């Protein structure tokens, strides 16, 4: 098990270094930071002095190492647009994005899995067909169009739910803020979470359904029927557990997708998170923020992949055996 995790982490290192290289190349070379900071009219002496201060006159790999080292300590440079440390900007917005993403994921999982199981077992029932139609719309409905339609119905026409912002938030610990402590905060979360989660929900539903259909055709399910097990045991113990491995993969990968898609949702609902920050940075060519976002997203994806691998371990005994074998080989 330990060897398995170690090998996965080792595999992730080149990926992180490569993404880091891209992020650094952006940071150091795109848009000429010296001109951006000093403007067009600076003298050569001023430019050289600033380049020296910024470390731009040092060899490439020294600069790269320095950038990575600073990033590892949480220093991503200064935002060109807001003239504040990028790390502070991100720390301020991270809780909002994570709260939204986690809520949307939980929503998508809690609704999508039961729908998929039902549609897989009763594939021709009316409800299953309805689910499939709804899911097709869910997959094809662009996130921002969905958001606009929800705002139109629930905020403009019915006036039930707020259409923008995060509502009142309370500080927890030194830097985390949460909207979960008040009813107004939770209400503000509903529309964005539904908007962000619907696509993932339909994806999970379709995946669970097709995996269920696949598993229900296998010999071991046929044998379980021949053993006279109850439908309940067959569907929810044997079939569902066997669909879990691919479902975990997709859900894991989808969490990364959710964080990325949150930038659309955050724009529609003016949700003060990292996505909104990124979009504003792209508009104003704020390279340090873009570099930092790229690095953080890569880190997040690596972390998610690792978690997914660990979950496999818990679910599938065959992988546990593989892991053990790898470990004994390792010694």
């Amino acid at each position: 098990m330990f060897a398995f995790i170690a090998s996965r982490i080792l595999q992730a290192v080149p990926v992180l270094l490569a993404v880091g290289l891209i992020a650094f190349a952006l940071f150091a070379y795109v848009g000429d930071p010296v001109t951006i900071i000093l403007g067009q009219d600076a003298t050569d002496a001023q430019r050289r002095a600033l380049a020296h201060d910024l470390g731009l006159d040092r060899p490439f790999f020294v600069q790269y190492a320095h950038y990575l080292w600073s990033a590892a300590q949480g220093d991503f440079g200064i935002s060109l647009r807001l003239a504040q440390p990028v790390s502070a900007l991100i720390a301020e917005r991270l809780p909002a994005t994570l709260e939204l993403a986690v809520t949307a994921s939980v929503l998508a999982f809690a609704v999508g899995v039961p729908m998929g199981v039902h549609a897989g077992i009763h594939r021709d029932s009316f409800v299953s067909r309805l689910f499939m139609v709804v899911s097709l719309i869910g997959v094809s409905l662009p996130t921002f169009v969905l958001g606009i339609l929800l705002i139109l119905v629930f905020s403009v026409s019915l006036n039930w739910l707020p259409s923008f912002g995060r509502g009142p938030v309370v500080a927890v610990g030194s830097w985390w803020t949460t909207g979960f402590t008040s009813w107004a905060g939770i209400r503000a979360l509903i529309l964005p979470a539904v908007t962000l989660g619907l696509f993932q929900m339909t994806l999970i539903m379709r995946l669970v359904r097709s995996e269920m259909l696949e598993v229900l055709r296998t010999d071991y399910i046929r044998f379980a029927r021949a053993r006279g097990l109850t439908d309940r045991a067959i569907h929810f113990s044997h079939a569902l557990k066997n669909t879990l491995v691919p479902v975990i993969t997709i859900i894991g990968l989808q969490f990364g997708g959710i964080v990325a898609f949150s930038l659309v949702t955050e724009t529609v609902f003016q949700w003060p998170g990292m996505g909104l920050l990124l979009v504003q940075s792209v508009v104003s060519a704020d390279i340090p923020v873009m570099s930092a976002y790229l690095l953080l997203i890569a880190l997040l994806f690596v972390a998610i992949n690792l978690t997914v691998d660990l979950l496999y371990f818990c679910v599938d005994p065959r992988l546990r055996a593989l892991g053990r074998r790898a470990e004994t080989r390792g010694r």
Partner: protein
Amino acid sequence: MTLLSVRDLVVEIPSRRGLARPIDGVSFDIEKGEILGIVGESGAGKSLTGAAITGLLPNPGRIAGGMVLFDGNRIDDLPATRMRRLRGRRIGMIFQDPLTTLDPLFTVGQQLVETMRTHLPLSDTAARTRARDWLDRVGIPAANRRIDAYPHEFSGGQRQRVVIALALCAEPDLLIADEPTTALDVSVQAHIIALLRALARERGTAVMLITHDMGVIAEIADRVAVMYAGRIVEIGPVDAVIRHPTHPYTDGLMGTIPSVARRLDRLRQIDGSMPRPNGTRDAMPVGCAFHPRCPKVFDRCRQERPVLHTAGASLVACWLA
């Protein structure tokens, strides 16, 4: 005493091309404790017969005629729940490929305990003790330790032993074994067949052994039924059918067994292939389904379908018998 009685069984599978009839009027009996071999080419309807008896026909297949009596009661029209209680408890089943028959995510002990507790009033500990005994009985070494192992940790032969234990652990009266050795190494096949025979004889369990291997039938069965294109063409005591095959198809089949063929000095082959009842009108020949391949064909075979009638110790569907 008759345990299982199949009467004029017809199975139909509707498809886009029309209505296929892969089983067309099959009748046979199995006595208590008897081993009946069902032999035939793949596609002859052997496995579907087993599936029809246990109510596990693949969708959208259905029983379109005839009936199945088990222990004197009709079971082909039972509601799903009662049929389920019968499966495993009164009728056990074994499938062809032991590598795919066991759920990979549960230990063999869990699967045994689960099966027994579904059918028998046992506590978890009692079921576990019995599970260990069963693994012992089917010849898994160190059953005490192996009970917590997952299927992938067993070899193919051992997995089939586990499958046999699973099929028999709720003490059924009838075991339907569908090609139980086909997927195994030749060296393992004999052991599995010997184990099946020993367990069946010891417990008085009747066995319906589906196979395309006449050699296996000769070794273990009391009686044998030969199926061709969804019908039984010959059924009788194993000795009679093997020594004096009456139907030309059975005769041809005997020629394909090396040990029998040695006596006949050559390994024969039946020319042509079996018609498949796939629903198209011209797939099944009029008259005897075997007539296009039959070496002894004559006019009547092309017009009238022969029915089973007594010929010596057997029943044979051939105009020559």
